[in-house]
């Protein structure tokens, strides 16, 4: 025995085996308990991180909501007030009066759109928003979209918008194309959004596949932001230095409505200033598929 010269320890063989078995059992127990505690620790850390991330996301949404809604409320109200006072004090000539009234109508429409979007989000989040699917006229709907796109003012942020419709359905396409499978595109500007054949986007779906349409816009974002662009109140960049109006609700609402119709929407962009593409796929009517 170290420290006790002349002394030794003798263990009986049976006892030695018993001690060794106890030692192995202890090692197994510590290994199992250690692994269990490690797993619990890792799982707890992951849960805490996810919780913190969710909390940060909620804080970001709250900040964006306050900033965007405040701006989207204040600007049109300030504009309406300015034009009312101008009309009262200046007595402008008829053509200017008409332009001021048109501006005020645009501001009222903007406020109306904001309130409608917020109400729609509230109804979606509470599960009270139900889409009633009915048969529609694809040609008329697309014409409405083209008309609405044509009204968006063109500037450095929105230099051009293209809408492409792809469909395997001959009946739905008779208004634009006589072939059973084709792609028809409109590009604005020029101001008249007439169909053109510049876009050659081949249809690769089956004859019973979904109808699709795509809108490309000059707005763009970093590639990693593509998925986040569908989140509620998400807007690319710094909220305080916006160059575009909006609340960050449009794409969220679009995704939720398209999901309720059984379709999907994706977005991608090669980078800031290089445009972005949205692809919407909607299922065909059962009769059309037959």
């Amino acid at each position, binding site marked *: 025995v170290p420290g006790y010269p002349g002394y030794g320890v003798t263990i009986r063989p049976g006892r030695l085996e018993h001690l060794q078995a106890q030692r192995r059992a202890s090692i197994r127990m510590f290994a199992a308990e250690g692994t269990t505690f490690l797993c619990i620790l890792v799982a707890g850390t992951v849960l805490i991180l996810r919780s913190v991330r969710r909390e940060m996301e909620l804080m970001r949404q709250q900040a964006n909501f306050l900033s965007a809604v405040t701006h989207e409320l204040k*600007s049109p109200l*300030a*504009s309406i007030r*300015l*034009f009312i006072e*101008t009309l009262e004090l*200046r007595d*402008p000539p008829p053509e*200017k009066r008409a*332009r*001021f009234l048109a*501006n005020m109508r*645009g*501001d009222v429409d903007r406020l109306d759109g904001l309130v409608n979007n917020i109400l729609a989000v509230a109804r979606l989040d509470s599960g009270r928003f139900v889409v009633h699917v009915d048969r529609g006229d694809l040609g008329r709907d697309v014409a409405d979209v083209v008309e609405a796109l044509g009204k968006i*003012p063109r500037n450095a942020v929105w230099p051009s918008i293209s809408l492409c419709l792809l469909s395997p359905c001959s009946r739905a396409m008779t208004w634009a194309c006589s072939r059973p499978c084709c792609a028809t595109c409109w590009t604005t500007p020029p101001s008249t959004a007439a169909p053109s054949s510049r876009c050659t986007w081949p249809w690769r779906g089956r004859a019973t596949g979904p109808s699709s349409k795509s809108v490309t816009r000059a707005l763009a974002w970093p590639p990693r932001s593509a998925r986040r662009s569908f989140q509620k109140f998400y807007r690319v960049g710094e909220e305080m230095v916006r*160059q575009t*109006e909006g609340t960050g609700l449009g794409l969220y609402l679009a995704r939720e409505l398209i999901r309720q119709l059984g379709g999907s929407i994706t977005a991608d962009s090669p980078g800031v200033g290089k445009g972005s593409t949205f692809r919407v796929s909607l299922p065909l009517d059962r009769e059309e598929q037959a």
Partner: protein
Amino acid sequence: MSARILVVEDEQHLAEGISENLQQEGYAVEIVGDGESALSSAGAQAASTS
């Protein structure tokens, strides 16, 4: 020569209304939509008058 005012406003409607009122008051108005354009416009104006 009338005084010149640089209006920096990113809302086109507001800028138009402000400009209309200032012009009625006899000012010459220039409108720009962001801070960078405002700085370059003011710089150009300062260079031309010096």
